[in-house]
């Protein structure tokens, strides 16, 4: 059919969906599956619940598509629906999340990094090791909510600072502060751990014998 179909703008696709070509919704959401899931996971920290929230968010976005205002970005709108869904779910489940109460307000204490004298680059192939993946996942999951949200959008999903601010409805300077703290907390936690697992294999074999 139309060879230009893949480059259609989102606004056009949304207009077509609202005009009755509802099947196009499948295509509209494909680029955002991962981002929506990640944001849900950042709240519930449980794959099954995160998947549930992601599905609900995509269904809600479809049902409310006519309220989407075209001056916003579809992805920003979708993420805010996801975050609302995740927060609602937590409230309904009356899950007590102590760490949320512990979220330090912006403006307090700086995070000191782990002090090192030299750093030997850990190559990306290291993430193929389950041990390394687990360390990285746990460190991100352990971040206070307000820092984890910013970190995931900015550094994992690679939104720019302005988009991150719009998505979370916070100021650009708040994004910068939270991102900085998130990164420093991760460095503090992960640098010593990664360095330890990245020691030459020989030493680890000795340790096991």
């Amino acid at each position, binding site marked *: 059919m139309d060879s230009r179909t893949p480059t259609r703008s989102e606004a056009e696709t949304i207009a077509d969906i609202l005009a009755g070509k509802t099947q196009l919704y499948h295509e509209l959401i494909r680029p955002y599956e991962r981002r929506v899931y990640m944001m849900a996971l950042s709240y519930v920290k449980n794959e099954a619940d995160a998947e549930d929230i992601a599905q609900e968010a995509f269904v809600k976005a479809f049902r409310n598509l006519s309220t989407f205002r075209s001056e916003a970005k579809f992805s920003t709108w979708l993420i805010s629906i996801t975050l609302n869904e995740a927060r609602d779910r937590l409230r309904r489940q009356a899950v007590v999340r102590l760490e949320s109460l512990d979220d330090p307000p912006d403006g307090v204490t700086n995070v000191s990094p782990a002090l090192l004298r030299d750093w030997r680059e850990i190559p990306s192939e290291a993430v193929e090791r389950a041990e390394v993946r687990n360390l990285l996942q746990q460190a991100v999951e352990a971040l206070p909510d307000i820092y984890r949200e910013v970190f995931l959008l900015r550094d994992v999903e690679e939104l720019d600072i302005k988009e991150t601010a719009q998505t979370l409805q916070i100021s650009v300077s708040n994004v*910068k502060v939270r991102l900085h703290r998130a990164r420093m907390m991760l460095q503090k936690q992960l*640098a010593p751990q990664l360095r330890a697992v990245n020691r030459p294999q020989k030493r680890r074999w000795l340790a096991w014998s």
Partner: protein
Amino acid sequence: MVIECKHVWNHISEYLDGTLSEETRETVQKHLDHCEICSAILDSTRNVIVLTADDRVFELPVGFSERLHARIALELMAPPD
């Protein structure tokens, strides 16, 4: 201008993003050029960001996409409210 390590740490994130003012960036750069601790902190932070951003760290559950689109398909068949 000479600044202490502690002050350099406050600028690491923006240094990595390239959003520091020219003046601050130069001051930080000068410090980094002779301070191995701050250089190691910068390098390890950059490394940690690259690793955590790797798609293989956080993967979608197997079958996520299929289940999602099956759910959407059901929704599309449902009569509007």
